[in-house]
């Protein structure tokens, strides 16, 4: 890891450590893993290179995750819209999937139609994502209705039929597991 430390400038390392929730070792490890995703000739300036989405999805931590596409979409700052990620996007992703997202309001997996709230369609899609793709592990229509009704009753405080960011954060802040389980660890 000494080699990669010399490639990542020291002041950048200090800055990244202050601005994310990661420690120096984690940042260096992230740098190593990120540069492994690049082709050999681009590894010299990994800081400014962008990795296409298909390469990011080969990471073992993201390979089997049902929310992989949403994660890449939310953290990518690419103007071309191809969801490629730079090193800083990668760091932001590791720093806490649950915290401080640059785009889209919700901690990753929820707002599928990007309209800024979770309505019934979003909730349905989320539950389907969570229960998997198999036919036998899906909820029936009636169960889905009951579930969505319950969720809205519990979390929709202003009773407008959708869950906006504050209500979502309110629900999530009461869950003790959120910060530790919503974290991608390299």
């Amino acid at each position, binding site marked *: 890891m000494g080699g990669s430390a010399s490639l990542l400038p020291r002041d950048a390392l200090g800055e990244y450590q202050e601005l994310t929730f990661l420690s120096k*070792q984690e940042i260096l490890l992230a740098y190593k893993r990120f540069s492994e995703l690049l082709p050999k000739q681009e590894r010299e300036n990994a800081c400014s290179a962008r990795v296409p989405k298909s390469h990011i999805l080969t990471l073992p931590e993201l390979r*089997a*995750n049902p929310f992989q596409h949403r994660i890449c979409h939310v953290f990518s700052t690419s103007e071309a*819209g191809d969801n490629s990620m730079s090193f*800083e996007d990668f760091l932001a992703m590791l720093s806490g999937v649950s915290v401080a997202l640059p785009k889209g309001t919700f901690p990753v997996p929820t707002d599928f139609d990007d309209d800024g709230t979770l*309505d019934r369609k979003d909730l349905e899609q989320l539950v389907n994502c969570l229960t998997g793709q198999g036919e036998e592990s899906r909820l029936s229509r009636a*169960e889905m209705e009951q579930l969505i009704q319950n969720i809205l009753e*519990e979390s929709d405080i202003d009773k407008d039929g959708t869950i906006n960011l504050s209500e979502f954060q309110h629900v999530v802040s009461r869950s*003790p*597991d959120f910060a530790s389980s919503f974290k991608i660890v390299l």
Partner: protein
Amino acid sequence: MSQPPSITLHVPEGTESDGQEPSPDSERALHTSFHQLILEQSSLIEAGLELEMKERDRESPACLAPPDACAAAWPEPGQGEQCPGYSSASLQILASMPSRTIGRSLGAIISQYCNRTARLRRRSSRPPLQQLCRAARPSLRQYDLDTDPARATLEDKWSLLVKELLSLSPYQRSQMLLTLPISLAEKRTLRRQVNRQRGLLRQHAQHWAPSSPCGWSIVYVGLGCRGLWYRLLSLLRTAQPWHYTLKQISGRFGSSVLSYFLFLKTLLMFNFFSFLILLAFVVALQAVYPPPSASPPPFTGLELLTGAGYFTHSLLYYGYYSNVTLNDPCTPGSKGSACPPAAPPFPYNMPLAYLFSVGVSFLVTCILLVYCVSCSFRESVGSSLGDLAAKVFCAWDFKVIQRRSVKLQCENFCTQLKELLAEQRSRSHSQSLCQRLRHCIVVLLAWTLALGSVLGCTLAVHHLSKHMHVVQQEQRAQGSGRWQQEAILLVLPLVVSLLNALMPHLYNLLAMWEKQDSPVTQVYVAICRNLILKMVVLSLLCFQWLSRSVVCSTEECWETCVGQDLYRFVVMDFIFTLLDTLFGELVWRLILEKRLRQRPEFDIARNVLELIYGQTLTWLGILFAPLLPAVQMLKLLLLFYIKKTSLMRNCQSPSKPWQASHMSTIFITLLCFPFFLGATIFLSYTIWSVQPSETCGPFRGLETIYKSGKSWVLVLQKSNPNITWFAWVHQHLVENTFLLFFTSGALLAVIYFYIQVVRGQQRVICLLREQIAKEGEDKIFLMQKLHSVYEQRERRA
């Protein structure tokens, strides 16, 4: 973000925009102002909206919203279930509301955080309760008409944010930067701007800089220390053992199984600290100055199991330690020689050292435990509301990365959801009286069975120990071989460990038969019963050891005997855990795979309770066998690798709904409250009231172990009259029970105070929820009014 139509509110004089919130009277004025506005300016609004619509069609939406979602961002009319019949124009306005666009618009984020930092700067930690007596809506209260950042341009907002950040303290600033939801590149530019401004400010404000070289050196030393401290912290983080192993485990089995291994690591840490203290102050010194003793019997392998024989007169047990001051130049009994006036080597009072080391190790363990408990409590105190919502939003475990495990997690999640929904449905249908009665009877029966089994086990252990004692006497009278005599000693630990291994399976079966309402209750009930069994058996054993009516009644050195017994219990516990892993996991897997083609689950609760039981035995035995923490450490290390191998080869992740952090809290609390507390009570009773044996150990000949401490205080008092305050403190604070009552009373008062504060805050939360619901109604009302305006316009057109 498109600008909202510029609405100018004509608010009557008397309400300032900054600091003073509108009173109910001025709110009335605001309401009438709104009403007039809607009537008079409806045509203006229409014209403004029309212009806006044209602008929105012209500007490309891609610059703000992600391109692949822009089609979905404008829902077609009639599609949204929450807004039936709204026209597309009003839906477009709905979609551009601040609460929905906050994530997409950089300007909105920045202005929100500007406000947040301003509020942070202005107010104290808790908002004053006086604010609530006013009826004004919160949204109006903070409506700064003149300095509304939503109207400023992006550059202005940016510089405003920089200015606000500069006025915060460094810690608050770094926290604010961490939580800003903008991309990392933008955060870096913001940070650089803030630092640049701060550098400029520092140049202007030179007066605070230290003028003397002394001051500068202090500053540099301080900076150097801080740098060292950060480097040490980062080193500590890398020195985490088993990081990759734990990641492997959590990647395949999830956070709940990981909590078992983390608990094991925590126990290892406790034992490490105890061992270190005892090693440094007691064991090492006694090893350097060994007491005169007879030659020990030859070492055979059986000592590792029984702890007797070669180990009896060794550092392992209490009996080996001397009761004199080690390395004392003035040894009593040297006839007529005065103490040499030359510089004496350090005399070391072994009895005091023994007592204080045991005390300090318990104190350190207590502090660490309380700290761990408070950490877990802080994380896991959650309300019971929002069960389903929290489950759906927060239940996905990102640590699981293997494909098969992800699929399994999805299936488990589906099952849990279905169970929760079914439970809700059954709860809403009230059960008939007959069913409820039947359920009651079943529960009662199950509990009677469980408690009866506990009683039965206790009586069995009691009678067995009596019987073993009789057999031992007979064997000694007959003079049978050493092997037989020592094998007899192993019978009681074997039976107790067997009971501890088998009964939990029985309780699991009972819980399944009972069919509790929710699977979580099932798990808790099984843990409870297991716990009761272990506590009762341990209490019986403690009573037997201290009363010495059956066990160790004929020994001269009863403390060594008790230490040996505890050593045997620890070793037997380890052996039975190994056997349980072998049969419970390996053999069971072979059976299950042939029949049902599935693997056994890793039973977290049972394994954790076994760990807790083992740790309690160690704590009970510290006084009698100072090296027992080392034995326990070795046992835990071996257990880690064995359990991990067995887990990887034989098990699948648990299907029951485990909330990992909730479980960790429960485990560490269980460790603290019944078990550590019990061990402390046992130790205190031994030190305060039990007479140590006459012939061996550091406290031989004294009335109680505590007397050694007391006599030391008296000696101090006699030798140096200046420190009578110490004796006074000892007499009036440690021995007097008044202090205990006083501290308990003060603690209770503090707890009551905090309970009242929490209750008050809950009431505030209820009020705020009502207000938010009312705001929602306002929003719907306004949308409907807007929609009616559009309808009128369309009808006119």
